[in-house]
């Protein structure tokens, strides 16, 4: 075997396209190096961090080959919307059949619907009003790999997220056709992906009925003007703006409206946070226990996208810091930037507002007042007055990591 570390360095320099084969990169982001090895990740994660392309995708940072878990290099986040072929991929289970639109069907049922339905792809796309929304899809465990102490799971750095324009139909319109009874409590969603073994819990999620009936919750069949990539849920996935991606069921095939709390591993045990530890407004009350509650909306966060740790600048040079900021759908109030390690803060310029569920681009320019090391930081505050944290709010699953980022640059 070639020396893995040297190999990784070559990958980072763009000297080799790992395993890309026929799918060699069609572009190289202006020839810039992609960030593959993020400081702060576990050592074993860094050893396994390579760029690798799934069919139809650009080379992304491979976290696990199977089930496929790939994150988007930060450099792609300098655009307002994330390319479909660079959009992150996250699966719990390895059986991911390709389903054509001709064979796809949606079963709508459960004890709390009046008239169970089966919809074809045409029924879904042509039978209901089509709507568009810009929304950030963010894995609950994004940045888990940066938790201190480290916690087990997919050791994501910053890239288990992507912003897209989604087109679809409202879930509530579909449910209205089936008739939602007064006793409806939760809506249970299942996709066509499944476990290898029948003994493994299938990835089935539920939503509180009020969230399923929210006008922004969509059954989406387009992403950024094109079909969903297979790895992002083709042909139809759920889009739950504001809530973490665990609820955005891919390849959705079944929607069941039920009157009792759903019992399933991925809701009752996984994707839970300690109660009362995070500043969230929207809660999933029918699934709360004494100690824990399902993760729901995203917490306020930001990311610097155009500057790397250790980057060098000339003294006197105007340095532009660019990034993105987001939350669970309340909207950005302010993004502040510090270039002195957090002693002083100045507001950044906010970019175009694509809607409260989209991330918001921002920028801030400065000239260093002295030579030497400068710590650049960014901190977002949303319209609820909620800000990012400086100290990690530790939780065993590594969710909701919104610690203020600090990037050290050198001015000489």
């Amino acid at each position, binding site marked *: *075997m070639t020396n893995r570390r040297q190999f990784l360095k070559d990958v980072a320099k763009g000297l*080799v396209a*790992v*395993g*890309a*084969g*026929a*799918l060699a990169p069609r572009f190289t982001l202006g020839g810039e190096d992609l960030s593959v090895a993020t400081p702060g990740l*576990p*050592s*074993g*994660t860094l*050893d*396994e961090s390579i760029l*690798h*392309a*799934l*069919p139809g995708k650009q080379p992304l940072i*491979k*976290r*696990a*080959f*199977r*089930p*496929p878990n790939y994150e988007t290099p930060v450099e792609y986040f300098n655009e307002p919307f994330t390319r479909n072929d660079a959009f992150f991929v996250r699966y719990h289970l*390895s059986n*991911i059949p390709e389903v054509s639109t001709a064979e796809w069907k949606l079963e709508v049922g459960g004890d709390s619907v009046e008239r169970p339905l089966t919809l074809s792809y045409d029924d879904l796309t042509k039978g209901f009003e089509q709507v568009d929304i810009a929304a950030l899809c963010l894995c609950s465990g994004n940045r888990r790999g940066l938790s201190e*102490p*480290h916690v*087990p*799971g*997919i*050791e994501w750095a910053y890239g288990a997220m992507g912003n897209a324009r989604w087109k679809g139909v409202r879930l509530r319109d579909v449910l209205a056709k089936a008739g939602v009874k007064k006793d409806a409590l939760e809506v249970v969603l299942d996709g066509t992906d499944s*476990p*290898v*073994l*029948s*003994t*493994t*819990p299938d990835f089935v999620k539920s939503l509180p009925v009020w969230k399923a009936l929210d006008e922004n919750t969509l059954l989406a069949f387009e992403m950024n003007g094109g079909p969903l990539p297979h790895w992002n849920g083709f042909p139809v996935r759920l889009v739950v703006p504001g809530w973490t991606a665990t609820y955005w069921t891919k390849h959705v095939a079944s929607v069941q409206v039920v009157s009792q709390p759903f019992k399933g*591993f991925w809701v009752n*045990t996984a994707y839970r946070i300690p109660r009362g530890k995070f500043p969230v407004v929207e809660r999933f009350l029918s699934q709360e226990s004494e100690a824990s509650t399902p993760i729901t909306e995203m917490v306020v966060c930001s990311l610097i996208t155009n500057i790397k740790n250790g980057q060098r600048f000339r003294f006197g040079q105007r340095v532009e810091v660019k990034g993105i900021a987001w939350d669970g759908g309340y909207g950005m109030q302010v993004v502040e930037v510090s270039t002195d390690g957090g002693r002083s803060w100045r507001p950044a310029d906010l970019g175009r507002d694509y809607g409260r569920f989209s991330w918001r681009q921002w920028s801030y320019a400065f000239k260093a007042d002295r030579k030497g090391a400068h710590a650049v930081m960014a901190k977002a505050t949303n319209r609820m007055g909620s800000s990012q944290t400086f100290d990690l709010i530790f939780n065993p699953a590594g969710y909701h990591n919104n610690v203020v980022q600090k990037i050290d640059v050198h001015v000489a």
Partner: protein
Amino acid sequence: MRKLILSTLLLGSAALAGEDQVKLKEGPGKDLVVANCVMCHSLDYIPMNSVFLDRKGWEASVNKMVKVMGAPIPPEDVPKIQEYLVTQYGKK
């Protein structure tokens, strides 16, 4: 490299492509780990989750695979698998 590219071209169904490049550390129990774990997931899950789990952490991970994820690992192999993970990928 040539081998990598070739395997990607040959394997149509995607998710498998490339995973043969994951090499676990040599040591007693490695064969059992490969035999039992690779059924459901690629082996990079192991080094990715290192080095930070101690003995308790790795034991809990394997127990979760058996009790929660339904991995049909013969009971007598469980401690051997745990020992390999603790020795090769555990926090000292």
